[in-house]
């Protein structure tokens, strides 16, 4: 009894913390759902909270995570490690081109797994298809040069895409209008969130021509839907690669936004692109044009830009 008494108080705090912490999170989630049902504006993190979150060395952590997942696993360890990942994140291995887990040398390679050729048929009736497997976070029209990352939480279009060239006789147009080629058109957006268990390659959502790649080094905060509801301008803070160009209706862009555990982005037709590397500073951006000054394509396709067909593999996200 005496020993038990001396041990008990020291063991109380952990369960107490777990219960009270869990209760608090549950209450917050309940409150958030209530607010959503009432149509109330979401409660955002304060600038101090965002600054505190941004002060975490997420890029360093991400690169360390990438290094760790690049280490070749011994054959006997591969199946248990990947099975745990499959079970945790609900990966459908029946769709994978290589189902034998022993064939993947490390978790990074497993994360980049390809799919069997016939498992993702392309919708022939739609001019725009999903570029990735995931969850639709938000979609709609862009109003007043502000885009919604989730309902009620916006970010600036200009901050997201970076400055655009103004026509010489035009100094008053809004940023949104600068992108539009016709007053009969509008600007639309779709956000697809890729969860850890999803296939992490991305494909061309339409027939279009990429003219410019703009790389924005930045933070690597989580882009989990819960965080996207809390942090305004989240997609403008994180490292991202924006591919912009033209499609049959005018302006078109695809932007891959990185996150803490998935910090680097690869574009198959752009060998110069390097993301999540220490030499770039947050807040800067780096352009690479696929069109030369005289309008000729660097890819020598004769049309000025990189021509992508609907469904073509464009790039992939990588761990770290």
């Amino acid at each position, binding site marked *: 009894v005496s020993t038990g008494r001396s041990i008990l108080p020291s063991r109380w705090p952990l369960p107490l913390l777990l219960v009270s912490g869990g209760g608090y999170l549950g209450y917050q989630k309940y409150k958030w759902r209530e607010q959503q049902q009432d149509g109330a504006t979401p409660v955002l993190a304060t600038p101090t909270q965002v600054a505190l979150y941004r002060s975490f060395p997420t890029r360093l952590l991400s690169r360390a995570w990438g290094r760790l997942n690049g280490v070749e696993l011994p054959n006997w360890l591969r199946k248990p490690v990947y099975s745990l990942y499959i079970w945790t994140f609900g990966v459908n291995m029946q769709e994978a081109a290589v189902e034998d887990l022993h064939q993947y040398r490390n978790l990074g390679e497993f994360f980049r797994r390809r799919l069997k050729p016939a498992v*993702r*048929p*392309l*919708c022939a*009736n*739609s*001019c*725009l*298809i*999903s*570029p*990735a*497997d*995931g*969850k*639709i*976070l938000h*979609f*709609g029209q*862009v109003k007043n040069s502000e*885009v919604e990352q989730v309902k009620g939480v916006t970010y600036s*279009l200009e901050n*997201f*895409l970076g400055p655009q060239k103004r026509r010489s006789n035009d100094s008053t147009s809004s940023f949104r209008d600068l*992108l*539009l*080629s016709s007053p*009969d*058109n*509008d*600007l*639309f*957006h*779709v*956000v*697809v*969130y*890729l969860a850890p268990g999803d296939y*992490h390659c*991305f*494909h061309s*959502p*339409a027939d279009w021509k990429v003219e410019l790649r703009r790389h924005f080094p930045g933070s690597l905060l989580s*882009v989990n839907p819960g965080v996207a509801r809390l942090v305004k301008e989240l*997609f403008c803070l994180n490292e991202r690669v924006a591919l912009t160009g033209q*499609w049959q*209706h*005018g*302006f*078109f*862009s*695809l*932007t*891959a*936004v*990185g*996150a803490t555990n*998935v910090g680097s982005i690869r574009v198959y037709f752009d060998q110069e692109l390097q993301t999540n590397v220490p030499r770039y500073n947050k807040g800067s951006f780096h352009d690479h044009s696929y069109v030369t000054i005289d309008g000729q394509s660097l890819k020598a396709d004769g049309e000025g830009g990189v021509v992508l067909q609907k*469904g073509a593999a464009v790039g992939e*996200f990588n761990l770290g």
Partner: protein
Amino acid sequence: STIVLLFEAPKDFSFSLQPGQRIRVGEGLGSL
């Protein structure tokens, strides 16, 4: 990770989506 598409289209472009729905590569997002 996240993919954001921003595009110009005629005003009558309509999405065939629901917020929060699961989607896969190649499935239609919308049409004219």
